[in-house]
Every structure is written in C-alpha cells, then in structure tokens.
C-alpha cells in the first residue's frame, strides 16, 4: 500500500492533512441510511482514518456487496472508484481487483447477512487467501433493507421487534477469520469512535486481510430490549480487550507507554500499534489466546473488543502469486503478447 504521498504545504486557516487535503476531500455522497444508524458512525470513522493517514483517495478502491451496509461506500471517499457488486460476492470482486492492480488500497464494506449468510463461502476463502484488503462487517444482527429478519450473527435467544425468538446460535466472524488465516482480526462498536478509529487506521496500514467486525445497532429494526445488538446491550456488555493506540509510520512516537502493560506491534509500512493491555495474559499474536478469549467472553454474553489477533509479517496473497511489481491491468502489449518465436515454438510442438 502506498501511503507515501508527497507532503503538501497546508493552506492557511484550514485543517489539512499531510498531503494537503481537507477532510472534505474524504467525504462521499449524503447518506440515505436511517438517522442514527450505526453504519453512519462507521462511515465517519473511515473518513477520519483515511484523512488522518493522509492517503490519496484516488489510490483507494471501495467495494461492497448488497444490503444497508453495502450502500456505505457511496458515503465516503467520493474521488475513489467504488463497486457495489452483488449480494455476498464482494470478496471475489475484490480479489480480482486487488490482484489486477496491486498498487491500490482496498476497503470492502459488508454486513452480517452479506458475510455470514449468502457470502460465507466467499468470506471463508478471502480470509484464507490473506488478500490485502480491509474488510469491515457492519454487524447489526439483522437484515435492515428487507425490514428486520434475523441474520446469522444474531445471538441465540435474541428477539425481533415482532417478538420472534432466534433459535440458532450465531456465527462468530472473528473466530472464523482467525481460524482461516486472516492476519488482522478486530472487533469494535460503532458507538466507540476512539477505538474504532484506531483499529481502522491500523487495519489500513496492515498488509494482508484486516477483518473488522463492527457491532452497529440497527436503530429501526434491532435497537430494542431483547436484541443483543442494541446500543444499550452492547454498551453494557462491551469488554475492551486493550486500549488501542495507532501511530502512523510518519509520526514520531512521543507518547510514553508503560512497558509492563503495553504491547507494541509494527506493521509492514513501519506504523505501530500500541495495545495497552486490560487483560493480563492476552497475546494478540497468539491464535489460541485469541480464540479462547472469544469463546470465554461469548459464553458470558460479552463482546471482547479491540485487536483480537494480528500477524503482521504473514505473506499476503499478492506476494504469494509472484506477480510483477507494476499493476497487471496496466501492462502494455509488449509485455503481455509473446513474440512470434514463442508461437512458432508452440506450433512446432504440435507437428
């Protein structure tokens, strides 16, 4: 990922980032989601994160599937190309896109139905490939766009507004992602701007699949008593795993951390995340610890939030493919059409 755009002098009186862009340059069209929707809060954090990191929005691609969540890419980074594809299939579109142009920074926005139900197959294989992409699940436990049916992340025993009780256990997308090979897995809450922004910035700076499940209450269909993904429930049952601080590679680390309680993780581009531990023995680089934590908190009806698992040096899919450094999509004919000698040699082999 190239975050190394030239530093621009700031225009007087206006707040600009290190490449001289105002926050406005990171905004998108006006949201059409319900007022108070958790997804809108996530959109704001995405805007903040790209702005803070000073990433050129024209070097970003935004992808999504179908659903309320999947409308979100239209609401941020207007000058980035976007692709609102088909239900549950954003991972494959993203895979083709990222492989075709390895220079672009990809962010995919999905929902709990788009990922956990119709898209679970593609989700599984995306995690497995460790494709460089930030994959955000805006998780409200229900289908908003079709008016509130349960999704596969709805908790056992939670109720619909109509009183219908969910009698199947939820899929934990974080546990799944860790198990399958994603190299950055986090969970956050749309109502926790500080943590979410720190996680998003770290995810954008990470090379490999960064999967973030963001609990994002549906104000219209799933924000009532009996729902385990309502604001009230999540606020009460959120167990922050660690206090996440993100330091981009271009900023001097000036904050002091207590060595005894802080874990520092260096990302591929030199950025650092500081995880100030709240749980004594938690190791974010250990799969077993991460999975144990998820199971234990889940059993208590709690959500562990923060960066659950990170493997900063894992080979990503692009490296694995051994492709040229320049974008495949932009290769000229001279590099993609072999000469006549090649064809002659092939023809000779069939004589």
């Amino acid at each position, binding site marked *: 990922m190239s975050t190394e755009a030239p530093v621009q002098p700031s225009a007087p009186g206006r707040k600009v980032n290190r490449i001289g862009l105002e926050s406005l340059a990171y905004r998108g*069209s006006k949201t059409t989601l319900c007022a108070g929707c958790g997804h809108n809060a996530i959109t704001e954090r995405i805007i903040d994160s790209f702005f803070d990191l000073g990433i050129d929005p*024209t*070097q970003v*691609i935004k*992808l999504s599937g179908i659903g309320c969540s999947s409308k979100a*890419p*239209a609401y941020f980074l*207007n*000058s*980035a*190309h*976007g*692709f*609102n*594809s*088909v239900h549950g*299939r954003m*991972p*494959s*579109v*993203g*895979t*083709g*896109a*990222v*492989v*075709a*142009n390895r*220079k*672009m920074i990809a962010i995919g926005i999905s929902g709990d139905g788009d990922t956990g139900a119709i898209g679970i*197959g*593609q989700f*599984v*294989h995306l995690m497995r490939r460790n494709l460089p992409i930030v994959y955000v699940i805006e998780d409200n436990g229900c289908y908003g766009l079709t008016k509130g049916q349960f999704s596969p992340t709805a908790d056992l025993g939670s109720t619909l507004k109509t009183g219908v009780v969910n009698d199947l256990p939820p899929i934990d997308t974080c546990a799944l992602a860790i198990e399958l090979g994603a190299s950055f897995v986090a969970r956050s809450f749309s109502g926790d701007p500080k943590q979410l922004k720190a996680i998003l910035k770290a995810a954008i700076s990470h090379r490999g699949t960064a999967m973030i499940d963001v609990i994002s209450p549906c104000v219209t269909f799933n924000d009532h008593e009996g729902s385990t993904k309502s604001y009230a429930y999540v606020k009460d049952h959120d167990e922050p795993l660690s206090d996440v601080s993100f330091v981009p590679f271009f900023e001097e680390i000036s904050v002091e951390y207590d060595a005894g309680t802080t874990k520092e993780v260096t990302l591929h581009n030199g950025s650092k995340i500081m995880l100030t531990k709240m749980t004594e023995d938690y190791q974010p680089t250990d799969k077993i610890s991460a999975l144990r934590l998820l199971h234990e908190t889940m059993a208590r009806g709690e959500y562990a939030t923060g960066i659950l698992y990170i493997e900063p040096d894992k080979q990503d899919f692009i490296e694995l*493919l*051994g*492709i*040229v*450094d320049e*974008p*495949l*999509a*932009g*290769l000229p*004919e001279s*590099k*993609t*059409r*072999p000469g*006549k000698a*090649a*064809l002659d040699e*092939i*023809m000779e082999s*069939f*004589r």
Partner: protein
Amino acid sequence: MSVTDVAVQETASQSRTERIVNDFSLQVATVNGSGSQTANLVLLRSIFQMGVPVSGKNMFPSNIAGLPTWYTIRASSKGYIGRKKEVDFLVAMNPETAREDVMTLPPGAAAVYDEPLKLKDLRTDVVFYPVPFDKLITPITHDAKLRRLVRNMIYDGVLSRLLSIDMGHMEKALRKQLGKKEKAVALNMSALKAGYDYAEANLPKLDPFVVEPMDKTKGLILIEGNAAAAIGCMMAGVTFVGWYPITPSSSLCESLIDYLKKYRKDPETGKATYAVIQAEDEIAALGMVVGAGWMGARAMTSTAGPGISLMAEFTGLGYYVEVPAVIFDVQRVGPSTGLPTRTAQQDVLATAILSHGDTKHPLLLPASVNECYTMAMEAFDLAERLQTPVFVLSDLDLGMNTWMSSTFDYPTKPLDRGKRLDAAALKRLGEFARYRDVDGDGIPYRTVPGDGMPAYFARGSGHNEKAQYSERADDYANNLDRLARKFETARTLVPKPDVTMARDTRIGLIGYGTTHWAIVESRDQLVADYGIDTSYLRLRAYPFTPEVGQFIDRCDRVYVVEQNRDAQMLSLLKMECTPEQFAKLRSVLHYVGLPIDGRSVTTELVKQEQVATT
C-alpha cells in the same frame, strides 16, 4: 452402451473384397485408466505422419478408472474429420463391452480382440483377429504395473501389420509421445514389435482396410481445441484468469497455465505478467474476472454448463455495470450434471440471455481449433471494445478431441483496449459521465482505478449516465435503450458468417461450431447420393449479422443443424426473423452425446425434403 447402435441397420451388407484405402473408422474399446491413451495417440499420429487426414475422438466415462472407454480414429483420404458413425475396424480390449461392440459392427468390419474373450463365433460377417495379449506381454517385462501399461502397445503393433502402418512412423510417433524417456521408449518398442511379429506370423490379412502414404498432412499440426484456445488467450495478452475445474473445460485453463509459465515471465525480474487463481466455485471465478476487468485487466474464465448456471448473476452484473469479461463455455451434455464427458451445443440460449432482467451477450462460435485460437483473441478485443461479457462457445468434441489443423498465424492486429478516457478525451468531452453515449454507438468511455482519470461508482443497481444511483423512469429507460444500441454496435463488430451459395438450389443449411464438419460431409453425400445441391451458411457469432437474413431470403427452405434437443439456435434466429424468413426455417437435431456425423444430417434432411416436395 453402444456407440454404433444404428449402424447395423443403416449399412447395407456389401462385399468388401476390394481394398479400402485410407477411408475407415477404427475404434479401440478399453477400460479407462488402463493407459491406452499413449497407444491410441501413437496410432493416430502414425497415420497422420503418413500424410493421411485423421481425426481422433475419445469417448470416455465420467470416472477415473474402471469404466468403458472408446477411442475412435478416422482416416479419410477426402479429408473428412467429423465423426463417422460406422466402425469399420474394432480393437476389443474391454471384456465388459466386447460382445456388444462386436454385435454392433457393420457387416464386413474387422475386429482385433483379446483371445480369451472368445469373440469369433459371435458373427460370421466380421473378420476376427484373436491376439493373446497376456502371452505376448509376459516376456517383455516382469513388472506387473508396466505390463498393464505397455500391453496396449501390442495392438498398435498388430494394427501396424494389418493396416500397413509403417513401423518407422510408429516409432517416431512413440518418441513424440514419450519425449526423451529412453527406457520407456525401448519398453514400448518391444511391445510394438511383439504385436507386429505376432500378426505377421499368425494373422493373414482378410479385411480390406489399409493405410497408404499420401501428402495431405504436410505442414499441419494435431491439437485439441482447449490447447488452441489457451494459446489464443495467451497471445491475446490475458493478465487475469479466475477458474474452477470442470469437465470438459479444465484442460483449457491447465494448458494456459503451462503456456503462461513458460512464455509470460517478465524478462528482467522473472516475475509473472499474469495471475491465475483457482477460485472456490464458478461464482467466485467470474466475480474475480469482473473485479479484474473493472480494474482494466484482460480477464477470463473457462467453464461448462453447470458453471454457466452459477455465473448467471455475475454475467448480469458485468452486462449492467459494463465490465469486459471473456467466458469460455466448453459445452457438455445437460440438463443438470447430465453427461459430463459427452458433447453438445446446449448452452446457446442460456448464454445468449444469461441472467435475469433484459440481458443479451455476444457469443463467438468456433468450429475449428484454428478458430479456438483466433476467436480467443477476438473475444478479448470485443469484450474491451464493447465493455461487456463475451462468451466463446466451444464444446467437448472441439475442446478435448484431437484435430488436424494448419499452423496458427501470428496476430497482425494490435490489442483493442476499447474506449478509455484519457486527458485529451476528457478535454474534448468537457466532463466525464461513465454511461453517456458520446459517440452514438452505445459505447461510453470508461476510466479504471489508478489511471489518474475521474472515478465513478460502479453498481448493479439502477443508475443514470453519471453512474449515480437512480430510480427515475427516464434514467432507467435511457440506459437500457443505450445498452440495446450497444448490442447493435456489437452486430457490426462480431465475426461474419462463412457463406457458400450454390447455384440452382433453394435449399440452405445453417450450422455452427463442430456441426460444421458433419455438414461438410453431408453436403457431399447429398450431391453424390441424392443429387441435392445445398447452399451453406456457417454462423460464427451472435448477434447475427445482415448476411444471415440475406441468406435465408435467398433460400426456400433452410435447415438449421445443431446438437441439442430444442433447436436453440433456430429459436434465437426466430427472435430476429421476419415472418417470411421464419416460415422457411427447419431443424436437423442431434443430441445423443456423441458428435454429430454427416450421415445423420443427410438422412434427416432427405427425409424432410421428401415431405416438403410431395
């Protein structure tokens, strides 16, 4: 299962005392997994090397080992390389099918068989050549596994003697098949010689079939359509391949991978100038292709019927978002899983209008291995020019069987990357609107991520010409009308049909794909046996170009010959025909899983002509 069930009834008993030179169909019946492919290809290649036109068709089960397989080699001095229905010369190696294989031979045929099968009392009108394969293989090697593998070379030796196939050519062909594995060559050669010597000493020639040298294969190659298509894709500059294994298309991507590995490494860095991803299913395969195509890569996938069904949704997305994609459909027999290892042309309608809503897609229709190569390149150019998914409809017969062909020409036209917005175009147009019909041909300008040009938001939902979400009636209708206009532009860009107008006839034939080879032969039969002259149009693409309507206008009756039950191409033609043209169309259909043969076309056409003219 009988390959030749109707042959007995159709071929009149005739005495075959004369020599029949370079004109027969030879069938080897084995069990799959027994390693007969080497022996069969050596046989095919030897006849080819002697200058005699040949074709090889493998009829195999959807199974890895243990089920019956038939390999048919046709030698034809006249150059017919379609299927011949009758088997003239049988090699019966499979105990399970031997009896039926023999019973379905036409009178006057010959059969080499494994002696313990005791077949010779089954028929009096067939020449039998018993060969004790196990006895002959015993002295050649002690290794039981090797014995099984080289056992088949013995029948090559026997046939070399019986059909006068030059042993020198056999050895040359064997070396071509095995490469530099000297030990293997030596072992196979001794089996070959054992067969030859046995036949020379014990089997006096009693049948009329012989091979004599000709000069009709000079400079030609033997190749499968899937390999030819793979070469075409590489020469088309493909940069992204997403695929999922499925018979009979797998060998297309597998060949392509081999060629790409060899010829598409960056000379400076040694890194790949392409990516091939084996996806988790066909949905993801096309999803990846759509993503890569949106990015500006030359992207393709290859599949067969069940994969086409799964690709429906993404094809519709590609059509509506206007993303180039090349989809090879190596057709097999459906519906559902159907007969995965048998051939058909059953996906014509499905691909032409694949996906819900109003959609239509260009189809290219290769008939030969050469067209598999050229149309692969044309497909990429068309997909980028038209910014839409383009299908190439091959089939199992073309894709997996061995065909004779002239060598492929190096492309002379540069790649057509289509209408890309650049700084000059942007200045000229004033502003960028992704779906605005600036040139009146329905094809808008596009930008791709990372090209420095303005971005747009690609979406499968309703959109206006600026790619913004819209549910407005006029935005929707205008966009759909423009897409229809674009399809009219496609009509001017796709390959035109091959037309042969015969004088003094009002009977026409329309064919496409591998049906061509049966039609070529049938037209000769119609003249020779019935005095019926025919005009012929071979479709090479959909949408149909004006030549098709003109052809129908110049005929009284037009027989559309195809390999499916429901006359799918005829149905597509009817969608565009005038009522007068419509009334002229008739169907000749063939859908038994085996490639269509000339005699079937002739018989059916004559039958319908008799009805039409009385």
